[in-house]
């Protein structure tokens, strides 16, 4: 199986205070930000690795995982880290953050998919900066491929996947045929959430997060192929279809009030907060 995993770098959520908006409010100032890969995209990477191995140690590779990002040269650090974690090769589409919107990212990925012809495209259900929850769905639409979003479990079957999706009322199960686009949710990294065709019955991963990049893999990462493409070569002439009107920092939290009893709490929730 060949899987393309789309990764986006985001400003380190633990250091969100560094995100600055200039007075004009026309953009986000990215100077000096610390970056990391969007957590949901890392889960997608972990999912891709689990789908292309048998789970046993030492693991046998059963397919190919290609990590893709769109961004400036610094984002190669994030790709190297994906390669150290286990991806087989990487592609960077050279561009800058403010030259992109969801639609353009989906269009660029579409071209890459047409070149690479993966069986599956995996990505996080959303990025933790913009929280748009858009690119996966847009890409499936552009490709006219089946899609499953918010995957919490994935089981490989002949010619496709059985995907358990977390929805408000519980779990809905979808069967998608390859090639497909799947976006993943948090619980996809639970010990037995992902089963490739070769995963042994009853096997569980001994961790529930993204795997460590082991030292030998870190040292090997720079020897793995990393190709660079120009955005214009993929989607020449395309322009941004969404325009950012204004950025504003969220309002500072107001001090809370202490209520004296449950009655007052209920009353305030009803009359002031209008929550009930």
């Amino acid at each position, binding site marked *: 199986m060949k899987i393309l995993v789309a990764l986006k770098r985001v400003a380190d959520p633990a250091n969100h205070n560094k995100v600055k908006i200039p007075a004009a409010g026309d953009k986000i100032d990215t100077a*000096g930000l610390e970056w990391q890969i969007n957590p949901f995209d890392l889960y997608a990477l972990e999912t891709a690795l689990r789908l292309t191995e048998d789970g046993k140690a030492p693991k046998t590779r059963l397919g190919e995982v290609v990590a893709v990002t769109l961004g400036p040269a610094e984002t190669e650090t994030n790709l190297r880290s994906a390669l150290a974690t286990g991806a087989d090769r990487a592609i960077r589409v050279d561009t800058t953050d403010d030259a992109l919107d969801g639609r353009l990212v989906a269009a660029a990925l579409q071209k890459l998919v047409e070149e690479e012809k993966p069986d599956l495209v995996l990505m996080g259900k959303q990025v933790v900066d913009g929280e748009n929850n858009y690119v996966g769905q847009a890409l499936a639409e552009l490709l006219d491929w089946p899609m499953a979003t918010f995957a919490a479990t994935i089981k490989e079957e002949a010619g496709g996947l059985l995907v358990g999706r977390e929805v408000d009322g519980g779990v809905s199960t979808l069967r998608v045929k390859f090639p497909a686009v799947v976006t993943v949710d948090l619980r996809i990294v639970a010990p037995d959430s992902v089963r490739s065709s070769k995963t042994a019955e009853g096997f569980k991963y001994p961790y529930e997060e993204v795997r460590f990049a082991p030292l030998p893999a870190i040292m090997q990462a720079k020897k793995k192929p990393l190709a660079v493409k120009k955005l214009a070569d993929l989607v020449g002439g395309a322009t941004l279809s969404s325009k950012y009107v204004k950025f504003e920092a969220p309002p500072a939290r107001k001090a809370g009030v202490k209520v004296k009893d449950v009655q007052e709490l209920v009353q305030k929730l009803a009359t002031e907060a209008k929550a009930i």
Partner: protein
Amino acid sequence: MSLPQNRYKADLRELEFVLFEQFGLGQLLQREPYQDWGEEEVKLTLSEVYRLATEVTGPLNAVGDREGCRVEGGQVVTPSGFRDAWKKVYESGFKSLIVPPEFGGQSAPRVLSAIATELTSGSNTAFDMYPGLTIGAADLIEAFGTPEQRERYCHKMFSGEWAGTMCLTEPQAGSDVGAATSFAKKNADGTYSISGTKIFISGGDQDLTENIVHMVLARTEGAPKGTKGLSLFIVPKRRVAADGSSGELNDVKCLSVEHKMGIKGSSTALLQFGDDGQCLGELCGTAEQQGIKQMFKMMNYARIGVGLQGLGIASAAYLSALEYARERKQGANAAAWKDPDAPRVAIIEHANVRRMLLWMKAHVEGVRALIVKGAMHLDHAMALAGKDDQAALYHQGQVELLTPLIKSYSSDTAFRVAELAIQVHGGVGYTMDYPVEQHARDAKIFSIYEGTNGIQALDLVARKLGQAGGMNTQRFLGDVAAFIEKNRDHAVLGPSVANLAAAHEAVAGSVMQLLGWSQSGELARIPLVANRFLTMMSELTVGWLLLDAAVIALEKQQGLTKDDRDWAFYEGKRHAAVFFAQQVLPSVVGSAKMLSAGDTSPLDIPDAAFATV
């Protein structure tokens, strides 16, 4: 049982500063044999090791402390989770950073392995001792064993399949290693029958690995008394079959484990070798009576290792205190102390607490710089050997000189930082609900094992100061002087550099005095002041390195705006340096005065006068 919960954290920005911005790791990486390493690999390594520390070993720190180790049916049982952690730690490969490539390692610089150790050990000192001693034991075989021995033991030990220990101490032979009486009788087939009792053996038994390789100092038949007569033996817990697998037990009995103040997750075993006359060992290498020399060659690493244990805990305790001080609200701002309605503030706003926090910050970062400097000298010495022997000699000389400072000053500081961290926590710091009381208990051992700090101080004063005709000391003092000369008129740090100059002069004066006493045979005076001198010299070094960091930081700070995190980071460097220079370095001058006054009361007081009981 306590539930696994990570409370360890580290400041990776600080680690990167020390490695790259202050000590120029980037330049070292261009030298052989480090060329496979670039800044990217180093940073990825640190962030992955940090994950390991916070996700695997950190959550077990309190668990190990509460459960401790116990002996069941002659076998030590380690705390819950240690076996799983051992597996994960070795799968991650980070214990092979400095292992030679022929044994699957990555030839990383020592300094990177040092910082990785700060993280793993800082997150769980007790756990990290098992791999730490295993690497130490394997290093010995790697350096001195025969090709067959390296083949037989090193692969399995470096990969974590087997573990290792160091067996020096005996009931009557602690600091006085040469008093060891364990006995090795040569057999017709070239093996040796080992008998004797070793005490306090870290990792002496455990349930993490199928075999344990003990490195045992013992005396052969007819060998002279004292350290010279000791030979080093490889004594596995289970005999190793011809095909390399572990077979039957080798008559090494674990009779008990100590019940200790700290590092409770690390087993400290009483081992009985050859009780039934069935314990077989092999000489490490081919020559008898080389044991002490062989151990000594590895001593610098082991002692720097203890320094790192100290740093790991000190840093963890400081960051715990900082976090608590930001959360805990108590009292009002000093300016409003009379107003009962004034808002309660976080204790980090109180001058009293800020004083303690900055004391900790300055000492922790200073010790880190001291250790990184020592490890960098080691790396340079290794990279330059055979290429530029003069330069290699200089670096090796600095390693020799700085090692007792690293071991002692770091370990003493760790205990003091942990003590202050408890103080910042107030009453809760004294309870087991917060990690700092464990930090204090764990840290105390560092000043005792691997040569007590008393012994380190004597090593510094009696051996190291005069080593190579005093050349190493002169070069060291020269390096400090060059920094002072260059930065005397620094716009911001000038007055602090003046304090450094005074401390430099004081230390140089004391060096002359001590060397004078050595030459005139007044040796009895030396132990009275050796520890104080070690502290003086450590404080001089730390003051220098903190100021050096501040000079770099102030340069880098230019052009940054105040809301930039790096601005604040660099600003922290400046204040740590000024604090240390203004509030610690003056005591170096005072100590020199004390030293030259030559008081001998501890010798003059009759034994009976210490107390009437």
